[in-house]
């Protein structure tokens, strides 16, 4: 079993990039909706669902790498960010469902702006080598 990306970080691939891009696209879409006084539409909820799937896939890839013996630079922080990350889209979903006004869209926008930051922090906590 040879891992092609043995030296690379498991959270620095296409999935991480896709999650960041998708999250920002949803954020912009939600911002436009909020500015136009629109409640969260189906596209926003669909976007959140796809984002959650991508983030879960990212988490699985990270866990597989861990099972394969790779270790993040700061394990505690890494798991903290990983758990937080997969909780973000559901949080946005629930709050946006409770608020079927423009402010629901604003919530989706805010959460989708935070998610990319968490992805980047996740990558940083993996890459720090040593203690």
């Amino acid at each position: 079993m040879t891992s092609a990306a043995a030296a690379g970080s498991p959270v620095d691939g296409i999935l991480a990039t896709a999650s960041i891009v998708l999250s920002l696209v949803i954020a912009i879409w939600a911002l436009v909706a909020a500015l136009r006084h629109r409640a969260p539409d189906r596209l926003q909820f669909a976007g959140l669902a796809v984002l959650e799937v991508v983030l879960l896939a990212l988490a699985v890839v990270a866990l597989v790498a861990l099972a394969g013996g790779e270790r993040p630079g700061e394990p505690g922080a890494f798991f903290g960010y990983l758990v937080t990350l997969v909780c973000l889209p559901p949080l946005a979903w629930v709050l946006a469902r409770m608020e079927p006004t423009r402010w629901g869209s604003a919530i989706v926008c805010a959460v989708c702006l935070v998610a990319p930051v968490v992805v980047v922090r996740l990558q940083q906590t993996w890459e720090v080598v040593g203690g």
Partner: protein
Amino acid sequence: MAETRAPERATNKGPGRLLIAIYILFAIAATSRAGLQIATRFGEAPVAYLLSAAAALIYIVAAVGLGRAGHAGRRLALACCSVELVGVVAVGILSIADKKLFPDETVWSDFGSGYGYVPLVLPMLGLFWLWRTRRAPA
């Protein structure tokens, strides 16, 4: 409760819900940061880490206060936002004046610059929102 002459508007609707969402995000961020710091290296900077924990607690209680939306909830939120504002300004000044006081970062160090200054703006928004909702719309 009996109907009062000028009932307060709910703090947990509309923009308030966005505010609660941001408070929840900061509650998560501060709680995990404080938990990790205290669990792994408490001896290095106990003051900074206890401050992180206090900040985390305040964010949680503020979110609950805004979410409850009743009279007690408002007072709870008012107290939290006030403490938060004083805390972020005081810690901001202290952390710049004397770096040794807070050897490790907290949510409130340098006026919350590590978090895009949101910790500084958030209590102001909270207080503004409480002020805006103090009376029902005519």
